């Protein structure tokens, strides 16, 4: 069988890649996608450890994560749409209301 460390390393690499994607992209939508990648990387780690621990709890948690991700995506995308309506842009540089 494949050692679990392979999966875990893969998960770490995916997480880092997601992070890179988050910083490199500058439109909100793709950044949002990058977040999903990171979520998935975490999911992978959960599933792996569930298997090595022979416990289904990990899988259930992943199930919940996916559900929450779906909810989050729907609201998040709605917000992005709203921002676009107001600013006519989805670039992060244009959204700096919090500037001090």
């Amino acid at each position: 069988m494949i050692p679990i460390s392979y999966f875990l390393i893969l998960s770490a690499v995916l997480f880092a890649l997601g992070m890179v994607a988050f910083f490199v992209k500058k439109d909100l939508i793709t950044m949002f996608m990058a977040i999903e990648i990171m979520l998935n990387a975490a999911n992978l780690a959960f599933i792996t450890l569930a298997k090595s621990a022979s416990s289904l709890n990990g899988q259930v948690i992943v199930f919940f994560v996916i559900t929450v991700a779906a909810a989050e995506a729907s609201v998040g995308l709605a917000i992005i749409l709203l921002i676009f309506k107001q600013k006519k842009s989805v670039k992060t540089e244009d959204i700096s209301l919090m500037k001090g």
Partner: protein
Amino acid sequence: MSDIFWLIPFVPALSALILAVFGTKLPKKYISYQACGAVLISFGISIISFIGLLQTPQQNYPLVKNLFTWIHAGLFKANLSLQFDPLSAVMALVVSLVGFLIHVYSVGYMAEDKGYSRYFTYLNLFTFSMLLLVMASNIVLMFVGWEGVGLCSYLLIGFWFEKHSAATAGKKAFLVNRIGDAAFLLGILFIFIHIGSGEFTAIHQAVGGGAVTQGVATLIAILLFIGATGKSAQIPLYVWLPDAMEGPTPVSALIHAATMVTAGVYMVSRLNSLYAFSAAAAEIVALVGALTAVYAATMALVQNDIKRVLAYSTISQIGYMFIGCGVGAYTAGMFHLYTHAFFKSLLFLAAGSVMHALSGELDMKKMGGLKKYLPLTYPTFLVGAIAIAGVPFFSGFFSKDAILTSAFAKGEYFIWALGIAGAVLTAFYIFRLIFLTFHGKERMKPQVKEHIHESPPVMTIPLIILAFFSFGAGYIGLPAVLGQKLNVFNQFLKLGGHEAHISMGIEWLLILISIAVAFTGIFLAYMFYILKPYVPSMMASKYPRLYKVLYNKYYVDEFYNAAFVNSTIKGSELIYNHFDLKVIDGAVNGTASSTNFSGKILSYFQSGLIKDYALVFLLGVVIFIGYLLF
């Protein structure tokens, strides 16, 4: 009946209260009846109480009426209690009698004034305060009267407050008095700390019983005396009194001549055991008195303002009273106080009558030859002048002589010499005043001359009564050479202190010197101002510097202004602008602005961009995980 004396001060107080609240709505006639009536009632009660006092055996002195405990906390206890003993009785009689006469006089003098009710409110209030001062049985209550008369003096000097000079003079009087009062207050505190009670009987007992050391007694005596120099206008705090002449003339007569300014003398006499105990303090009192007596008299020589001459004369005469107290002759000091009250208020009221006749003119250079226009004012004025000059058989002679004799007898020859010098000057300046005003050429402006008229009877009758007293008041205190028994005043007061005795011969000699001195002064004045009227101006041009210094009152006012008033104000401004606003407030505002500045710097980190925040967050995570790993 003997315990109704406590009502004496409160009758005028009640009247003042009524006038203060309803005064503006009452008719003038009523106001004058009430105000004068209240003081007359006080005088009446004083006489009744005085008779009662005479019938009381002496071991029961003083009669004390304790109304209620006033202030009490811990060791500090002051009662609202009044006492009546010979000293208080004399003062109460003088104050209420002179006060009454001046009230009556004021009815005429102030008849046209808009502030009629206000004037009588203040005057009644003053009478109350003064009576409280002289009848208080403890020093704290005495301080109430002490401050109260100061307040009334302030109010009455500044009575015509629209006049800038009057308002300033009032303030000056109050402030200078306050300086003295601060010292007085400290004296009170020392008394409470070392004696434990402010009651006069307790103080006498403590001093007599040796409960206080010489040093403490001296300290207390000097502090209280500083208070007295303020109230009684002695060196160095006399500067307010000449300016106080801005007030209405009856006020000058009552407050700034007859009664209030003598409060210091009364205080020293009241605490005679203290001053008798402390030789150093007594010496200082005598010396200050003597110096003031001469010093003030020199300034009186050249003044042209009729009231200012009298003001300096008052300062000088009070100096004599302090000589008396300082050399241990408290009775003599009090005696002079008593005679002075009559003749000085007479002089002031007569001067007021002159002013009244001349439509308010004060400058003696614009008077002269008034003798024939003012048939009543002139003789009364003359009586007062003779009394103050020390001509025999008039009251001033007896009292001044008693003081000088005591000083000589005590061996204080220097002080005696100063007193004699002062006496020459006194006789000179007062007759200079008489000659310039009533004799010689008529120098009035023509339009003033047309209106010259004698004052109404309501003003002249008090003058006549006072003239009578100025002449006769001295006969209750005849010199010892005529027999000890004859000095009723002395017998009655029985103040402590050691009155030294000298041989009859020397005493007669001293009396003769006094008489000679008085006539010398009068003669000099006669020569200068009647026989050779050109001499004074010649002298002035010959010694311009001396004249200028005298005329400008030794520049003391200017010096005080520069040294104390202006330097304080300038210094405060400097502190305010450079310390309060810059340093303290600067520190406060600096804290605020530095916070603001660092906030601005920090706000650069808040770019508002999600990525920057995320990057910082990531950095944190990396560092945190790194920390966990290693």
